[in-house]
């Protein structure tokens, strides 16, 4: 089948091979490690490159048509976060904290996954809409904020109910709970929006938009030509960290393992189809799907550890980085590409057929 071939050819790219290599290095307990300063710098560099590229594209193609995809992405991300929560809480029997933490981890987006996706498309000779970088930036905090809001609501409700059974429902207590939630939320909101990933991404988009192709020329070698090489180096470290996590995978339980594979697949294919309906290009639809499929494993712990400290971080880090990330870049990306090719390949009528067929 064509998908298998795509998976195989994807498997044999330097990015995936060095990721697998990193996993093996970790499994055989090698002391190989990319120094911290480098692996802290690379995401900043990758996001700057993505942002510049996106901004330049947006300058070329305009960004009027980005509003609908962005709103749809936000809506889908919120819906999916709620959906994850229900599945995790009801079917998975996770406690409320772990459920919200996991729900938002999978509702959020992964910048590294996005980078790999861009490289994948480049390799396939396909382009994507520049404004997707902006959607990446906007999508970053959405799921977290929802999850934290709901967690805090739930907690203060619990406290309220407890209180009620003791004393007789004290309004000031209730106010206090809501007040605290507000403080925490505004703090998380501020932290998310000023978080380095969003800041560098949005900044670079704006700068890319301002400078355009011509202004980009002098820094093109660093921010464009070196991009794939830089990802490769980062993927070694990602592989090593994922490899160290592999041992914990069994601890997260069979339910979460299944969730970490099935959920992204579902979200991703929904994303591809919705994007196609909205008129995004073949590559753009893949990237749109990837945004929804990806889970956050760098930003999530930084936000959630502070906002939902009761949640067990090894659950969400292990599943996002140890299972979903490899699955997404190795298997799901080619699948979504195949799906997008399929639904884009034929005329619009057939397209509609495909969608309705798959959609419901």
């Amino acid at each position, binding site marked *: 089948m064509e998908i298998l071939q795509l998976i195989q050819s994807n498997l044999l790219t330097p990015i995936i091979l060095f990721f697998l290599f990193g996993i093996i290095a970790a499994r055989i307990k090698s002391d190989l490690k990319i120094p911290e300063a480098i692996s*802290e710098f690379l995401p900043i560099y990758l996001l700057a490159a993505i942002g510049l590229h996106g901004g330049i594209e947006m300058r070329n193609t305009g960004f009027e048509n980005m509003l609908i995809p962005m709103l749809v992405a936000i809506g889908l991300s919120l819906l999916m976060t709620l959906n994850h929560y229900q599945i995790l809480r009801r079917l998975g029997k996770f406690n409320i904290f772990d459920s919200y933490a996991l729900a938002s981890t999978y509702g959020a987006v992964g910048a590294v996954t996005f980078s790999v996706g861009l490289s994948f498309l480049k390799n396939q000779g396909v382009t994507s809409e520049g404004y997707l970088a902006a959607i990446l930036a906007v999508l970053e905090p959405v799921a977290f904020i929802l999850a934290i809001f709901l967690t805090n609501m739930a907690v203060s409700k619990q406290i309220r109910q407890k209180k009620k059974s003791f004393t007789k429902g004290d309004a000031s207590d209730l106010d206090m709970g809501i007040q605290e939630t507000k403080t925490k939320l505004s703090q998380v909101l501020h932290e998310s929006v000023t978080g380095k990933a969003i800041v560098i991404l949005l900044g670079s988009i704006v700068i890319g938009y301002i400078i355009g192709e011509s202004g980009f020329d002098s820094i093109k070698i660093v921010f464009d030509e070196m991009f794939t090489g830089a990802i490769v180096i980062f993927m070694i470290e990602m592989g*090593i960290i994922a490899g160290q*996590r592999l041992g914990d995978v069994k601890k997260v339980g069979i339910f979460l393992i299944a969730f970490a594979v099935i959920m992204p697949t579902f979200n991703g294919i929904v994303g591809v189809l919705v994007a196609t309906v909205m008129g995004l290009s073949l590559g753009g639809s893949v990237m749109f799907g990837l945004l929804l499929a990806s889970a956050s494993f760098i930003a999530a*712990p*930084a936000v959630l550890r502070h906002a939902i400290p009761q949640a067990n971080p090894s659950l969400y880090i292990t599943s996002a980085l140890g299972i979903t990330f490899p699955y997404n870049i190795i298997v799901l990306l080619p699948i979504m590409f195949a799906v997008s090719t399929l639904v884009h390949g034929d005329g619009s009528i057939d397209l509609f057929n495909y969608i309705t067929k798959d959609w419901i």
Partner: protein
Amino acid sequence: MKLYTVKLLTITCEILAQKNIIEILNKHEINAYTTYEVDGNGARGIRGQGFKNEKNVKVEVILREEKLQDIVEEISRTMFANFAIIVYVSDVSVVRTEKF
């Protein structure tokens, strides 16, 4: 040069909990401290191998005995359950008590 005894409070915890610790210190009107990143092993496993987020940090605070109790109490109450953390106290002597 006379030396005066004060307390040195050391908190070794996961790096993402540093903010919580500093907040607690500030709440008790302490704005002077020293921090540095460390690796570690403990009840919550080896820390310091992967992402920087998964390192530990040491926060060291020299303070007077008066404030010590409350701070240790608040850290214990709010953080021991959910974070990789240890807290310990030792005696140190300083020249300028007015600084602490």
